[in-house]
């Protein structure tokens, strides 16, 4: 399907990085990061392949650190002269940057850790036709859900296989391979002139890990339950967030718990380490080495080993996520959370595998505990409607009412309003159904029961 690398791609990339690092001038730090990856996306529609795309992305990003100033440049052209020009450009960009003594490159004196489980040799042997079949099966299985399912908006198989490599003048040097596969379907349903849509998905390392039937069944079940929804009446009501809805909220927390947001005064969690934010069953962890998490990697975007960071531990705010810069500012260690949005971006800071530690109860028990509640399956506008600085939010939602501990009539065009601190304090139960979802960062969350929220509607 695409050009296959001839030799071990990790060696090729490292050799290229070594050449650039060798060109560092005295007194200057140089970090070179490279990616070479192949992505395949297949969309099925109407029983045939609608789109098949195969993409190979290869590029190099260079950071130069001189006199506390950092400059960045990147290139997709890997010719020697283009690489030289890129190094020179990064050097020139550094001269206009503001010096900051916390600017530094990660350092290492030895080899970086590895995480071999995130790559499977078997990935290379998979026949492209098998991937096509998965996309077709996903659509067919969703349509087999029958009425009221009226169509499939998008039945998609996707995978990615690639190599990331890094080398610096400060002793960091490593490369790793990884692979992932996923399928996602959006089912459309209609009854009595009203329509609704909902997603189902499955994630894995290999195409053979994917539960296509399960993803289809999930989309069908979720969309069927939403049909015929009406606006609820307004009032205070417990809210149960299913894992999809809970993940959208955790995405907002993920940003507010970075040291970057905290240091810039853009986080409602600033200065609150050690405070009790919620009950004993509220524990939020980031773990970049957790191989079940979609974002698992041995080291981060600066070459710092990843690891487990407790952000909220037993209801108490335990700390923030750090990269090398934010850690240096506070005289602490990076948590290995430097992120890269590809070779064209300098390192940022984000959660890796962020998850809310599951409890013991099954989701049905949460419904029974609540008695009457709003069971929220989708939130709309969480990024515009939730303010990570003030903590206020008001978001659109749909889902079902819970009456006498069981799911009742569907609800649409509802709003949920509250504050993030109120929401954390109001978390009264956590179910055992942890689910990983790709919401920008990888987020794992079970079903949650919250009190003290305001449901808005007609």
């Amino acid at each position, binding site marked *: 399907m695409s050009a296959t690398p001839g030799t071990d791609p990790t060696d090729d990339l490292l050799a290229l990085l070594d050449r650039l690092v060798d060109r560092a001038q005295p007194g200057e730090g140089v970090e070179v990061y490279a990616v070479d990856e192949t992505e395949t996306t297949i969309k099925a529609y109407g029983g045939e392949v609608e789109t098949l795309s195969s993409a190979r992305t290869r590029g190099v990003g260079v950071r130069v650190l001189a006199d506390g100033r950092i400059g960045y440049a990147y290139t997709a052209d890997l010719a020697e002269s283009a690489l030289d020009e890129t190094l020179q450009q990064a050097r020139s960009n550094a001269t206009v940057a503001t010096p900051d003594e916390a600017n530094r490159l990660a350092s290492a004196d030895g080899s970086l850790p590895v995480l071999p489980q995130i790559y499977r040799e078997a990935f290379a042997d998979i026949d492209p036709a098998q991937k096509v079949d998965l996309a077709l099966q996903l659509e067919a299985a969703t349509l087999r859900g029958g009425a009221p399912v009226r169509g499939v908006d998008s039945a998609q198989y996707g995978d990615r296989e690639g190599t990331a490599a890094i080398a610096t003048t400060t002793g960091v040097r490593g490369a790793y391979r990884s692979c992932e596969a996923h399928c996602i379907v959006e089912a459309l349903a209609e009854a009595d002139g009203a329509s*609704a849509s909902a997603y189902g998905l499955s994630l894995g390392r290999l195409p053979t890990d994917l539960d296509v039937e399960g993803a289809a069944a999930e989309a069908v079940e979720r969309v069927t339950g939403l049909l015929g929804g009406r606006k609820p009446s307004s009032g205070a009501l417990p809210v149960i967030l299913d894992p999809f809805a809970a993940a959208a909220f955790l995405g907002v927390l993920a940003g507010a718990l970075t040291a970057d947001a905290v240091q810039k005064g853009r986080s409602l969690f600033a200065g609150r380490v050690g405070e009790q934010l919620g009950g004993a069953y509220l524990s939020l962890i980031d773990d970049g080495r957790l191989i079940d998490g979609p974002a698992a990697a041995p080291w981060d975007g600066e070459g710092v080993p990843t690891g487990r960071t407790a952000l909220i531990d037993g209801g108490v705010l335990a700390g923030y996520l750090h990269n090398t810069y934010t850690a240096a500012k506070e005289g602490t260690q990076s948590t290995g959370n430097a992120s890269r949005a590809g070779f064209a971006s300098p390192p940022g800071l984000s959660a890796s595998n962020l998850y809310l530690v599951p409890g013991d109860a099954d989701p049905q028990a949460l419904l029974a505990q609540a008695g009457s509640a709003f069971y929220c399956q989708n939130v709309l506008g969480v990024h515009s409607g939730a303010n990570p*600085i003030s903590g206020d939010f008001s978001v659109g939602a749909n889902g079902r009412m819970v009456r006498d501990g069981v799911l009742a009539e569907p609800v649409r065009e509802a709003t949920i309003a509250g504050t993030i601190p109120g929401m954390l304090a109001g978390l009264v139960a956590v179910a055992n159904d942890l689910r990983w979802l790709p919401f920008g960062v990888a987020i794992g969350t079970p079903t949650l029961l919250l009190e003290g929220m305001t449901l808005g509607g007609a």
Partner: protein
Amino acid sequence: MLDDSDVRAALVAALSGGGEFAELYAEDRRGRNLTLDDGKVEDLVSGHDVGAGVRVLRGRQTAYAYTNVLTRAALIEAAKVAAAGVRGEGRVTTTDLRTATPPVTHPAQIDPLDADGPALVALVREAEDAARSFDASVRQVTVSYADSVRQVYLANSEGHRSTQSPVRTRLVAQVVAARDDVIQTGFEGPGGSVGHELFTTHPPAGVGRGAAEQAVAMLDSIPAPAGEFAVVLGPGGGGVLFHEACGHGMEADIVGKDASVYRGRRGERLGTPIFTGVDDATTPGGWGSFGFDDEGAPAQRTVLFDQGVCTDYMSDRLRAQQLGLPSTGNGRRQSYAHVPIPRMTNSYILPGEDDPAEIVRSVQRGVYCRQLGGGQVDPASGDFVFGITEAYLIEGGELTQAIRGANLVGDGPTVLGRIDALGNDFDTRQGICGKDGQGVPVAFGTPTLRISRITVGGTG
């Protein structure tokens, strides 16, 4: 940018697997981003990206492959990968390439690349200084600058060949103001298919001050009420609502999949007779403008709603064929790494005849939104939610109390039927619209307008 014989060879290879249409899109992009955050020049990033994508179509199938390498051998290799992605008997051949001329161009007056690093730093500092000096409550200022200078080449098996040199420049200011326990944000981000003449019409100081004004005004806000209200949207500030709630559902891929609430409704009156909505890629220097779309169709102005009547969908080549409609030149892609899909360009609600001040005076009790925030829409139902970033209560025809934490909840067709006043003013906003994993520059424009009744979600 590319040699004709190499391109012909790649197109021939692309059709070798039974494709009915093949196309090669190549791009050479130089761009810079500069962020000034909390007084610090955090990153000046410059980049050079090159690549070419080969697309092969057969019936409803699309195959696409791209490469970072533009040699003859690499182009042919990518073409073969794409060729293998469709199945069928090979029979189509390519024709001679003829250079096509775009109906409109958007040449930059002042080349952004003439400004060196220190000059860019001076621009963002000017915006920052203006924001900081606006009011003592201003706590954080982030200013970012972005430019891109591209060479875009397109050729297809029907003989189209064109080159374009798109240039874009944008400046964005974000301000956080705080007083006591209240923290509010402001945003302003003008941009266009222009060079540094952008700063003649939008001086950096004005951009910084505008963002600061918004943040500071909202410090006096109280939590928004919840319920149904008459809502007046300020000029430009409501454009994102039209884009999200009506525009996306009028994109032909969504219509074709029966995932749009507007499907099958051409000719039907959905909006009030005063409401006309268009998508216009020809606006000189517009943020979403171009000469040819990303598959070689000429830029055009498409009427989506004509005096309330649903008229034309926005389509690209593939969806136009599927729906049996003309292409409207809305095939766009983020870069050579992406297939073109139907996208908006500059979408506008055209101005009406009402005095904007009179529109506000007509409302006894309602909400005035100067600026909506981001939004989300389910095109199947038309349901949407928008955050409101700057809003005020209207009481007795006057703007009174600033309100915060509100959003607008509703559905597109219903709202179109409730637009009952349109101002004779007009303004635009710019953004990056994400769809199917691709971000493209889009603009939205509206006059002042009144929605007779809509749900406001608030906490007060």
